[in-house]
């Protein structure tokens, strides 16, 4: 009887330890300093800086912008809420994108295939080119968007680039994911370069950079949920 009780206690302790270890490896929130630089072919430039917060359980993507001017953008469900000095000044309706952002995909280990495996799109072709593995994802006609298919390029099981293709194999957008930061099983690209070809073949550039990336920050709960009354 004594032996059985001892065994039960040991099993319970072992179970608790394993549970704690598994919990510790669960990534649920990420924050970073960001810079978005845009240079269009016509010479127009834009620079936005600040910090970004995302908790996959809250599902609010919060951009706390410092430049060009302090403001907060909250992307929740199908809306973008824009606040200045804690007051809502604009609201835009958008398609639900949070689950396809680099933040959500990284936290759910879905970034390596750009979230395609969990989407309703079907892989149509897989091929190897040099050290890259390319998977071609066909977009259903019903989706009602100009993208015909998406090509996801992986190198050593890490997302390298995403190419959006239109009709007649026209390149609509090229995205390059670079300089990955690694913390345990969590991986996050520190630079995303997007190139959009213009009508006359000229190129429009967008570079998004992330610094001071923190995963599972438990000290600043209030920064992961936005309340309009709160100051910027």
């Amino acid at each position: 009887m004594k032996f059985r009780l001892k065994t039960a206690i040991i099993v319970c302790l072992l179970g608790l330890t394993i549970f704690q270890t598994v919990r510790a490896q669960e990534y649920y929130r990420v924050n970073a300093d960001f810079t978005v630089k845009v240079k269009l072919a016509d010479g127009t430039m834009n620079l936005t800086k600040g910090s970004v917060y995302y908790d996959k359980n809250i599902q609010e993507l919060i951009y706390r912008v410092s430049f060009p001017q302090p403001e907060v953008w909250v992307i929740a469900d199908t809306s973008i809420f824009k606040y200045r000095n804690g007051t809502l000044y604009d609201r835009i309706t958008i398609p639900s994108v949070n689950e396809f952002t680099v933040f959500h995909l990284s936290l759910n280990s879905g970034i390596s295939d750009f979230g395609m495996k969990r989407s309703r799109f079907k892989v149509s072709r897989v091929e190897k080119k040099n050290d890259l593995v390319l998977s071609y994802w066909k977009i259903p006609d019903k989706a009602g968007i100009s993208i015909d298919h998406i090509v996801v390029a992986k190198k050593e099981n890490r997302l390298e680039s995403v190419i959006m293709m239109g009709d007649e194999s026209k390149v609509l957008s090229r995205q390059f994911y670079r300089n990955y930061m690694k913390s345990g099983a969590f991986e996050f690209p520190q630079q995303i370069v997007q190139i959009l070809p213009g009508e006359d073949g000229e190129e429009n550039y967008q570079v998004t950079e992330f610094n001071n990336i923190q995963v599972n920050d438990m000290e600043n709960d209030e920064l992961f949920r936005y309340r309009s009354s709160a100051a910027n």
Partner: protein
Amino acid sequence: MSRILLKSFSVFMAMVFLFTQTLSLSARASEAPLASIDESVLTLDESALNEAMQELNVLDEFLNENAGVTYTDLESAESELIIGVENSTAPLGMDSESEPPLGIPSFLWGCILGVIGILLVYILTDGDKDETRKALWGMLVWIGVWVILYVGVFSSAALWY
């Protein structure tokens, strides 16, 4: 023994027959395979990227060294760092803002063309609710102005007579 074997074989054949029939019914015409992508698409021209980002990198470095500086601060200091740089917030980059139809504000579409304007905005923006709402506001403002004018003219005419 041979009878059992024969029976088993016939059951097996019946199942194969049924299976192939079901497959042929559910089979769809196969789509043409997607064309292989050109390798050049997968490479990034670093020098072109660096050249494009040159001015923005200088501004970025300045902002890293001077935290809290806003666009207005640089504007009032007549800084050369913001020449050609827009004063608009775009954390989502090039996809941040939706364009009004033909570059004309949706409010004006609704204000001038009324219901037709709202319909045009809805169609031209692929059902953008916010732009359509702006067009609706435009129409309501136009109706409001008309009502005020009508009441004003009517009452002054009544006073005249």
